[in-house]
């Protein structure tokens, strides 16, 4: 079975793989940040007091690498102001909307009777206007990713259904419940790129998803279940045995990778004319009463999602956006679901314990598991001593922050944290020059 060198096998905990995606009604208060993507924040198009409709554009992309923002409800703009954000450490300009509960759609949302005749440029424009960004995590604007430089010769489109983070099952469920729509979205993207057939990459721990996608006619490659199988570079290495050059992007080896959620959003936009204003995410962990996969309006506060799932259990001490390996822990539950929210994970008690650090015993485990083939212990030591030039020579910027090294370290050393510090110091040093 295909895989890559390195990586780890954390407990999968895919508790929610069997639970149907359930639509959560949008709550009364919605907070939609104007920045939910890599790149420049969107420019607000509405002001306090305006009435907005479901799917109406409320923020305009600013520049090439940016993405528009749409309302997920109909109602009245209560305020435009900075609000807490699940990714940004500092509050972000957001549109606060009071939902009128009428769900009145924007007149622009129309199902297309035919989209075969649309040109590549028209399709890309639809994707851009729909505010679609990578839903796997980095939230990079999809239309930009679908516009590689002319000299790049794209021959492969990989649809990333690896979903290697423990606990998360949103992509898994999408494949199980709407394989045709996902395949349709993938074919649209293939058309844009001029690629014959998309390859679906799915880990073997999702047999249902694999068989449903195959039944729908998709070309599926089964991957070994191993973290971080879903990281782009590891995925490309595993499937095609191609290596993305250091510091480079997949298009340099003729590949574009798109995540399942993104592909579904493309299908929604092209076929149904729907912009991206809701997404499927997994609510899970021992810290929440009910677990499951939900279709949630972007802008719904975490606390409303958790209430909808029966609330906290006793002793919930950690709230994470995303999975346990790369997710971001939250100080408060008053942050909104954004386009990149793949899951909400709640941990309680001992589960959230991180061991206290002891000195490195040089066991080499971190080297063994690093999927980028780095020497994490050395990078961490160099970072902590401020020797960033040396760290750079040992490839610190190649670290994808997957967390495998910290996960296995028997000394409990927070390697990724130290490496992040080193990267930060290195960037600072570079920008000085």
């Amino acid at each position, binding site marked *: 079975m295909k895989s890559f060198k390195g990586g780890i096998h954390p407990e999968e905990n895919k508790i929610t793989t069997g639970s149907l995606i359930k639509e959560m009604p949008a709550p009364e208060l919605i907070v939609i940040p104007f920045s939910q993507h890599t790149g420049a924040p969107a420019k607000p198009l509405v002001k306090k007091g305006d009435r907005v409709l479901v799917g109406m554009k409320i923020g305009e992309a600013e520049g090439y690498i940016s993405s528009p923002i749409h309302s997920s409800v109909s109602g009245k703009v209560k305020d435009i102001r900075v609000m807490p954000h699940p990714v940004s450490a500092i509050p972000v300009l957001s549109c606060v909307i009071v939902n009128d509960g009428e769900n009145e759609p924007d007149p622009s949302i129309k199902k297309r009777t035919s989209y075969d005749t649309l040109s590549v440029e028209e399709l890309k424009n639809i994707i851009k206007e729909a505010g679609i960004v990578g839903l796997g995590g980095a939230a990079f604007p999809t239309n930009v990713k679908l516009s590689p430089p002319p000299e790049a010769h794209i021959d492969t489109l990989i649809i990333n259904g690896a979903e290697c983070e423990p606990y998360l099952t949103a992509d898994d469920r999408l494949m199980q419940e709407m394989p045709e729509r996902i395949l349709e979205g993938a074919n649209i993207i293939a058309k844009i790129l001029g690629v014959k057939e998309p390859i679906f990459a799915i880990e073997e721990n999702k047999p249902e998803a694999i068989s449903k996608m195959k039944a729908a006619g998709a070309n599926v490659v089964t991957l070994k279940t191993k973290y971080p199988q879903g990281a782009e570079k590891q995925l490309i290495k595993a499937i095609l045995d191609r290596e*993305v050059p*250091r510091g480079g992007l997949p298009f340099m080896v003729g590949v574009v990778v798109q995540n399942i959620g993104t592909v579904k959003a493309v299908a929604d936009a092209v076929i149904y004319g729907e912009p991206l204003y809701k997404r499927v995410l997994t609510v899970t962990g021992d810290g929440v009463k009910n677990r499951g996969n939900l279709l949630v309006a972007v802008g719904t506060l975490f606390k409303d999602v958790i209430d909808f799932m029966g609330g906290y259990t006793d002793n919930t001490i*950690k709230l994470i956006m995303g999975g*346990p390996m790369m*997710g971001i*822990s939250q100080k408060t539950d008053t942050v909104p679901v954004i386009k990149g929210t793949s899951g909400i994970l709640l941990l309680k008690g001992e589960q959230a314990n991180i061991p206290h650090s002891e000195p490195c015993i040089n066991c080499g485990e971190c080297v063994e598991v690093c999927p980028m083939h780095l020497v994490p212990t050395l990078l961490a030591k160099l970072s902590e001593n401020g020797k960033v030039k040396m760290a750079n020579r*040992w490839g610190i910027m190649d670290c994808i922050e997957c967390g*495998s090294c910290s996960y296995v*370290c028997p000394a409990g050393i927070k390697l990724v944290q130290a490496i992040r510090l080193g990267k930060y110091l290195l960037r600072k040093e570079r920008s000085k020059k």
Partner: protein
Amino acid sequence: MSPNFIVSSSPHFHSGNNIKRIMYLVVIALLPALGGAIIFFGMKVLWLSLIGIFTAVIVELLSIKIGFGKTWKESLSRSFDGSAIITGLLIVYNIPPNAPFWIPIIGSAFAIIVVKQLFGGLGNNFLNPALAARAFLMASWPSLMTDFSPLAGNMRGAISGITNPNGLIDAVSSATPLNVLKSATRYLSDPSMHNKAVETINKLYSPEVFKSLFIGNIGGVIGETSALLLLLGAIMLLITGIIKLRIPMSYILTVFLLILLKEIFSGGELIIGLKAGLFHILAGGLILGAFFMATDYATCPITPVGQIIFGIGAGILTFLIRMWGGFPEGVSYSILLMNIFTPLINRFTKPRILGEKK
């Protein structure tokens, strides 16, 4: 009401592996060989081991407490992390069963204070503490450290009937298989002794001797006697992922191949070469050294390629010492020498980063 959440940087989960688990598994892996040594050499071995371990732990505790000024709680926790126990035990494994009781005391104290703690403690020492202590003991009390005369009534070694070709009594006090082989080989070039030497070597390469070498009924330092029992522990460490095959494999294979080649190049038959190679693996401390000492985390390279180079280097050195050195055995000096090169090896074997040009 929303709870107060803990904020920390990812990852939020940990494998649960920890230093104590690793160290105590190594201790457990060393126990079969200890059991064997007690059977072969008698209860004295047990007392020697307990003394070695006790000294190592106490000295470790005091040096962490006094030297590093830690709290009692932390000093206790660290001195019982298992690493001092391993050092104490390995020192005993590296002395002859005839050694007096104060030898492991001095050895353990030296290993912990001079080799380990003076260099910053666990993970920071650049020499294997047990091996450095052995070298120190060898230099200070050479005759005590090479007294391999059988303990009264305890060992009926399969090689006890095989003596040096010239029949000198020194065969008794230094009757390790490698000793006998080395002196026999020396007499090969002496025309008057040649036939006797060949006979001795043939006897050494007999199935009975190989069986004894494998099971453990031979003279030598405490830990090296039974290949079987050592391999049992080694397999456990390999399965639990605590050691990797790279160092032991490359080390043992290098020794084997070099011995084989040397036999063949000096006109020997292939079968003799193979036997000689196997003999060098089983006799002496190669298995103990390759699996339990060359793999010491702090003192071996951290890069995969570096580990293979380390193993090959130790193999070459062991071969050179055994063939042309002043001692019949060379495992511990080879590993110590390679320890010194470890930082250099690490520096020049940076793994190829994914996407880096080949």
